[in-house]
């Protein structure tokens, strides 16, 4: 984060900021591509060292992510979740609040959605209208629950001076453990052999997208695009967003301009948690249809941190970054079925992408040394 000093000349500052932003956009794109390429390359080398055909593996990754209509649908399905959780992370990181707890907020939101829909389902007639009422109600509950679970570490930071990195990590484990207990015990479906809640009513169903994938809906894709557009607009075009981003760059400057730092932390965390909760709601309504033990649900909220960083915490940049992670996850399902390479290799490659994304300096220095990439600051 380059905190440029205060400047009396607003116009010049804006111009400078715009130029920095342009440069950093190009640079970030370069870093993102380099990180991914390097991680994939290491993955291929490891596959070759383990005695597999790397070219075939690479081909399978591509086919598994984009090779068929089914693959594309699967990729888009994961992408919606990665993009939305990524936006949740980006909101907080932009404001200088390190919300590592998106996973927990995603879990709490999704679980609350399931429980509230099942509860209300008993009173609402089945049918399309009833289904829409249930989905809207469940989504609102999920958003509120995720928002509250996000606001909690915000309150702890604002009034208890508790470091949000640590508290949100702890709250992830508490969410996973507690929801896991609820799913196995009080809210477990008696008739199911697996650990899960009862299924959502039949009427809770989103219209399918053009692909014949029952777990991908055009509504989900539109929601994803809507969230990206809305958050981008809030950040760049509203007073609240301006204050939030200012707090992220320099909190003293924000305080001088009249921002209440405590309230800012709490509202940022709440907003981030609400987006995560909304993602949880979409995840259960569009994809899962019930809730399982969250320890087996996937690391969407953790990978979202990498998605957001890959996008330099820019909500619009989260789209391609989320697509990359969605593609890798989709390729994983393909490799698992169609290849004898242990699919955990792809998990490892994702880990490497995250590692390289964490170290942009690595590529900057490399670029500076080889003279590539123009001016490295």
């Amino acid at each position: 984060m380059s905190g440029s000093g205060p400047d009396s000349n607003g116009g010049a500052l804006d111009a400078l900021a715009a130029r920095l932003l342009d440069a950093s956009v190009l640079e970030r794109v370069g870093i993102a591509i380099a990180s991914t390429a390097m991680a994939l390359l290491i993955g291929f080398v490891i596959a070759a060292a383990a005695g597999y055909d790397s070219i075939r593996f690479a081909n399978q990754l591509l086919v598994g992510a984009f090779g068929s209509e089914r693959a594309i649908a699967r990729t888009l399905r994961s992408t919606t979740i990665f993009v939305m959780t990524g936006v949740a992370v980006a909101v907080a990181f932009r404001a200088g609040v390190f919300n590592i707890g998106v996973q927990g907020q995603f879990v709490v939101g999704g679980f609350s959605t399931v429980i509230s829909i099942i509860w209300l389902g008993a009173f609402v007639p089945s049918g399309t209208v009833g289904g829409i009422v249930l989905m809207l109600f469940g989504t609102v509950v999920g958003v509120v629950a995720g928002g509250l679970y996000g606001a909690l570490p915000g309150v702890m930071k604002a009034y208890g001076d508790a470091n949000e990195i640590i508290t949100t990590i702890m709250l992830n484990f508490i969410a996973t453990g507690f929801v896991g207990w609820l799913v196995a015990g009080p809210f477990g479906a008696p008739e199911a052999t697996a650990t899960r809640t009862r299924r959502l009513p039949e009427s809770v169903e989103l219209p399918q997208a053009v692909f014949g994938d029952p777990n991908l809906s055009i509504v989900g894709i539109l929601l994803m695009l809507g969230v990206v557009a809305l958050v981008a607009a809030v950040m760049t075009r509203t007073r609240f967003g301006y204050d939030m981003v200012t707090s992220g760059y320099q909190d003293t400057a924000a305080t001088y301009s009249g921002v209440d730092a405590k309230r800012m932390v709490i509202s940022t965390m709440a907003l981030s948690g609400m987006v995560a909760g909304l993602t949880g709601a979409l995840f259960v309504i569009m994809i899962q249809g019930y809730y399982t033990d969250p320890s087996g649900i996937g690391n969407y909220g953790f990978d979202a941190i990498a998605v957001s960083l890959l996008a330099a915490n820019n909500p619009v940049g989260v789209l391609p970054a989320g697509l990359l992670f969605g593609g890798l996850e989709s390729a994983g399902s393909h490799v698992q079925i169609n290849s004898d390479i242990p699919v955990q290799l792809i998990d490892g490659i994702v880990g490497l992408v995250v590692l390289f994304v964490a170290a942009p300096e690595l590529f900057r220095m490399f670029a500076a040394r080889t003279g590539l990439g123009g001016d490295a600051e």
Partner: protein
Amino acid sequence: MSGSEYLDAARLRLGGITLVVLAVLAAVLALGFDVDLSRLITWGFVTRSLEMATPIALAAIGGLYAEKSGVFNIGLEGFMIIGAFTTAGTMFALGGTSPTQGHVWAAILVAVAVTTLLTVIFAVLLIRYKADQIVAGLAVWFIGLGFAPFAAALIWGSRSSPGLTNINELALGQSPLVFLTIVLVGVAWVFLYRTRYGYWVQAAGENPEALDTAGVDVNRVRYATVIFSGAMAGLGGAVLLAHAGNFVGTGSTMVDGRGWIAIVAYLFGNYNPVGAAAAALLFGALDMLNVQFQTVGIEVSARLVNLLPYVAVLVVLTIYGKTRIPAVVGEPYETEE
């Protein structure tokens, strides 16, 4: 001065509260549920608690050294997974499915060496290339979660190993690794609070400029602590495996959050090695108390009981707010030429 006195008072109060809570719990169980406490607190329970606590304590000591010096090593969990897997893999390479005790010790050494080497790379990324400590640490976790089961599947055709062997007890029914851990805890405490090098570690996290002025290379101190933290987490994973006797790579692997609990342990112990080890023992006992409850027929969800450390650390961080996080954790240090 008054700050540290206040801290001591706070810590004493915390320790006192913990003891009172434990006493009340014991009384409730004995009187309310008519439980024979001698059946609940057995020698086997003590042994299992110690076994459970050792990997956590080892990783916690490593983690607190790194954080004391100003680097948050959030990758402990990942290094533990790699340590546990490497131990199993080495044991299998040396002695097949029936390794000897010598093989077990050799495997532990190899695991520590491997995690140390990997941590060198990690440390270079963090310190030289100023990688984001949180994200890089998460990456280590993902890498461990991915590559360890991947390698296990290559070797054994499944994400878990067949039964190998576990380490023999040394005395009092305890494994030698328990004694090793106790010694390491003591050494870590003396080194941190009673030697010059220990002060360097603390200064690197509290006031790096002063340390730099005194002619000590801050980043070198940090390299040492970060590499030490990875080695200790690797040792923790190796000890976990040596006690368990086989590698489990399904789900969140056999490490199953112990690296994260290690972070909780040192926060709870306020970055003091002895305090961190005591917290690790408390969490280990809490975990094993679930088993004891089952044998005496008390129905408590193990899953909920195991959440207590996380809840406790949240309360401590928020209410006391005085777990002294070193001043410059997370900030790369630039030498002023």
